[in-house]
């Protein structure tokens, strides 16, 4: 708008225009409904409310309507050419007969008046951030922990949570040796922080703190025996949740609804139904929270078969059942549906079988899993409305090689841009997606990618 640019050429006029414009925007944003309708949306000429858009004059107190062109008449009569639309705060030039657009000074005018304060309190983000690709030294059978840590610090939701510094801004402990979430933040800092003052050993600092935190909280995690990565995963989420509870005890969350990163990113809801074997009537619906899905893999060829058998459920034998509609007493089927899908879905392939004798054996059967997974078939479908297709994308795999006690965990993560990396303790290499899909997967991480 050449007319506004003209006004902005003189610094005094420019500041006057911006100040008045901000004042009018403040009035629009802070007026009660009644005042808005009776004052800023009512035409001073015809006294009508909402006679189309109403414009508030930048140079006097006049309000003019669009439909009866009363602001235009005002503009032609007294030469005031700028009006602020009282519905959307946009500035209209009645010389150009169009809204002013593309003027960054105007768009950020609220910032102008506090710019000095902002510039003093702002730090330029370091462009020297690292790429987050860093190995973790094996400190004695710690691969079951480092593989979990890698999947977490490369998970977009967890990474954003840490980089947003929510925990760092609220935690009263502020010590990565005594607070698990602070330790996670320090891992993220050493992985993604400025690279100039970081050496490989300082990059291990966060992980060492995280280990010592874990050992303090759960003695069983200490020592050199191989442990289950899935159990450490659950331990990790519990810890993030309890840290969140500790730091947000003042801000009550809705009962049964936790907004910590563990629950908001990974919690879904399972719905189980007892189905009559004869008339297929469903009853006894129960809903349970789920943080991951554990799937049987025996005699299964691929992930879809595992999910299918999970979904079809199991025949209940020890259950004195009588169908309420057909009175059948045949053994019913307990069917599992997903009532609510989480943003990040974790699937555990049950490879470790704990026998009655107390020993554990490992199932090495290959289970094929896709890079993209449609979860709609396993969700509870409300008969009336069709479910949209819900596509999940594979973003991390934790694989296990070897036997139960002499095995080794490695993790593979997909980073933004779609490239895959394999984290094998301190070694980090690129790996093709084709290779990833051949892994003997133990934990699979899928992230919601498309709905509908």
């Amino acid at each position, binding site marked *: 708008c050449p007319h506004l640019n003209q006004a902005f050429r003189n610094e005094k006029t420019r500041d006057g225009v911006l100040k008045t414009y901000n004042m009018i925007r403040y009035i629009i944003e802070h007026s009660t409904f009644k005042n808005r309708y009776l004052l800023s*949306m009512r035409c001073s000429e015809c006294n*009508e*409310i*909402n*006679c*189309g*858009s*109403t414009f508030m004059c930048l140079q006097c107190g006049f309000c003019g309507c*669009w*439909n009866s062109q009363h602001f235009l008449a005002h503009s032609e009569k007294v030469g005031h050419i700028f009006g602020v*639309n009282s*519905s*959307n705060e*946009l500035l209209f030039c009645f010389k150009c007969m169009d*809204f*002013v*657009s*593309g003027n*960054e000074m105007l*768009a950020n005018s609220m910032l102008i008046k506090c710019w000095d304060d902002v510039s003093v309190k702002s730090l330029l983000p370091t462009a020297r951030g690292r790429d987050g690709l860093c190995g973790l030294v094996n400190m004695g059978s710690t691969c079951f922990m480092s593989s979990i840590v890698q999947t977490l610090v490369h998970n977009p939701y967890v990474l954003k949570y840490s980089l947003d510094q929510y925990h760092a801004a609220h935690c009263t402990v502020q010590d990565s040796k005594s607070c698990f979430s602070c330790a996670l933040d320090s891992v993220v800092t050493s992985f993604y922080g400025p690279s100039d003052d970081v050496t490989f050993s300082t990059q291990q600092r966060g992980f060492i703190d995280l280990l010592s935190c874990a050992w303090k909280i759960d003695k069983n995690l200490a020592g050199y025996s191989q442990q289950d990565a899935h159990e450490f995963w659950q331990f990790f989420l519990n810890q993030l949740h309890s840290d969140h509870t500790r730091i947000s005890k003042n801000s009550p969350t809705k009962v049964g609804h936790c907004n910590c990163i563990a629950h908001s990113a990974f919690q879904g809801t399972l719905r189980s139904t007892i189905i009559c074997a004869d008339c297929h009537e469903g009853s006894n619906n129960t809903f349970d929270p789920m943080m991951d899905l554990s799937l049987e893999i025996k005699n299964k060829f691929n992930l879809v078969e595992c999910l299918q058998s999970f979904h079809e459920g199991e025949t209940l034998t020890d259950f004195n059942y009588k169908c309420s509609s057909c009175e059948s007493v045949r053994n019913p089927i307990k069917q599992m549906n997903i009532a609510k899908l989480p943003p990040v879905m974790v699937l555990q392939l049950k490879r470790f079988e704990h026998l009655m004798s107390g020993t554990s054996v490992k199932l090495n059967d290959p289970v094929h899993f896709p890079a993209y997974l449609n979860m709609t078939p396993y969700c509870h479908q409300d008969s009336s409305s069709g479910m949209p297709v819900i596509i999940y994308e594979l973003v991390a795999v934790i694989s296990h090689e070897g036997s139960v006690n002499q095995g080794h965990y490695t993790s593979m993560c997909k980073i933004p841009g779609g490239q895959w990396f394999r984290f094998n303790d301190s070694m980090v290499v690129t790996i093709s997606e084709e290779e990833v899909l051949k892994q003997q997967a133990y934990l699979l991480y899928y992230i919601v990618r498309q709905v509908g």
Partner: protein
Amino acid sequence: APTIESTSQSIYDNLLSTMIQDIVARSTTQAKTLRARYGDNST
């Protein structure tokens, strides 16, 4: 002379035209601002 019907219709017309103009104002201004910032072929 205005009747209840004609006045009701007119109040309704006012409301609707304000809503339409609000949508058009926001969309046209946003489109132009984005074009000024990122050029013509931004998606």
